[in-house]
């Protein structure tokens, strides 16, 4: 296995607020890492630092072994990193298919016809080919999120980041999004997933990390993580979230 991404000792401040206090993570190709933790612990901020939507004040990020220069490399880097947001963030003025083709055509210079073909394949893969000509507002939350996943996949990313992709969804729509994510994981995609879906974590993750107050407090394979957590805070959090 080869390392695809490494974050070293990331510190992030919002003004005086110290949000990330030295977070490190290394992820191998094909690995699925799930990050859990209480609200406000810095999970989203950490994901956003990885693809530089957020600046960090200290620390280094390596992508495929190369140190990322936040001033120079970000546009290129972001084409390699797919991101899926809690609130989907589809472009409402564009049809589903245009949501998918916009970036590959404009950013990668992909041929328009080729982009459409690829988009149709991906929409088929997430089960939404019949929706290609509608506007996002016409779709349910679950459908929108599947489109958002397909949109990110259009760039052929090397790694996908998911920030609570199902937490804005009605419970009955969670399943369809998780199942797309499971397919993606089994196709070998490298993924970092922030989620409260413990079932997903148990089933799909190679590693689970617990983040609290800007630090990774514990990290283990899911069996171990859920059955014998070592850190007191992890235990408390799991008790609360699993309702024990």
């Amino acid at each position, binding site marked *: 296995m080869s390392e695809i991404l490494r974050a070293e000792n990331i510190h992030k401040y919002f003004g005086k607020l110290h949000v990330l206090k030295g977070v490190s993570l290394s992820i191998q190709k094909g690995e699925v890492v799930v990050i859990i933790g209480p609200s406000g612990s810095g999970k989203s901020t950490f994901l956003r630092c990885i693809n530089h939507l957020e600046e960090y004040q200290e620390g280094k990020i390596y992508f495929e072994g190369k140190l990322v220069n936040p001033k120079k490399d970000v546009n*290129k880097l972001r084409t390699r990193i797919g991101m899926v947001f809690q609130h989907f963030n589809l*472009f*409402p003025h564009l049809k589903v298919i245009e949501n998918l083709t916009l970036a590959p055509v404009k*950013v990668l210079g992909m041929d328009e016809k080729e982009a459409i073909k690829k988009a149709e394949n991906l929409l088929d893969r997430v089960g939404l080919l019949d929706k290609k000509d509608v*506007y996002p507002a016409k779709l349910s939350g679950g459908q929108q999120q599947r489109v958002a996943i397909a949109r990110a996949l259009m760039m052929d990313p090397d790694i996908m980041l998911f920030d609570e992709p199902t937490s804005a969804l009605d419970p009955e729509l969670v399943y369809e999004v998780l199942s797309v994510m499971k397919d993606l994981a089994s196709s070998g995609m490298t993924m970092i997933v922030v989620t409260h879906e413990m079932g997903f974590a148990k089933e799909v993750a190679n590693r689970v990390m617990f983040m609290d107050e800007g630090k990774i407090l514990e990290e283990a394979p899911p069996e171990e993580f859920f059955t014998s957590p070592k850190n007191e805070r992890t235990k408390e959090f799991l008790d609360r979230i699993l309702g024990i």
Partner: protein
Amino acid sequence: MYQLEVLIRNFTYLLLGAVVTLKITAISVLMGLAIGTFVGMGRLSKRKIISIPSSIYVEFLRGTPLLVQIFLIYFGLPSLGLNLEAFPAAVIALGINSGAYVAEIVRAGIQSVPKGQYEAARSLGMSHTMAMRYVILPQAFRNILPALGNEFIALLKDSSLVSVIGITELMKSGQIVISRTFASFSIYGGVALIYFAMTFTLARIVRYTEKRLAIR
């Protein structure tokens, strides 16, 4: 009766003036839109070197009378060695002025687009410019279409001010007819009606476009 007769006889002449009004308005609108889009984005720039001049531009042009601006460009610039004919001077003055108002509208429009849109665009590798062009501005313009429409209507009406530098647009055409016929009431009445017909139609066009472009 005399009054009405004069109006009817000179109506075509007034309409010719109205065509000039439309021409001036159309060119100034385009200029105002171009300036306003860049200055509006400029005001939101993180770089002070861009945002401060943009703010000064907007504040200065909104804080001084349009008539003074027209005089400054038509009568003032020649003393600096820059001679402009009346028509380009008029269009430039109106365009620059409208640009300031459009800038404020565009700024509000950009701010009305949720931040997640910009982030989604950037997360797909788009540059700032691409994100603005393909994602933010198209949505912003849909949101601000009613406000822009109002601005264009105001501009059409304000264009009557350039009659003072001798452009024979609608207002000036009316004055010329009156100086020959003294039928002030019917001619100014006719002028007002023609202005109203134009602003009313423009408002309708804006409403129609708004509906067509509304996000489905």
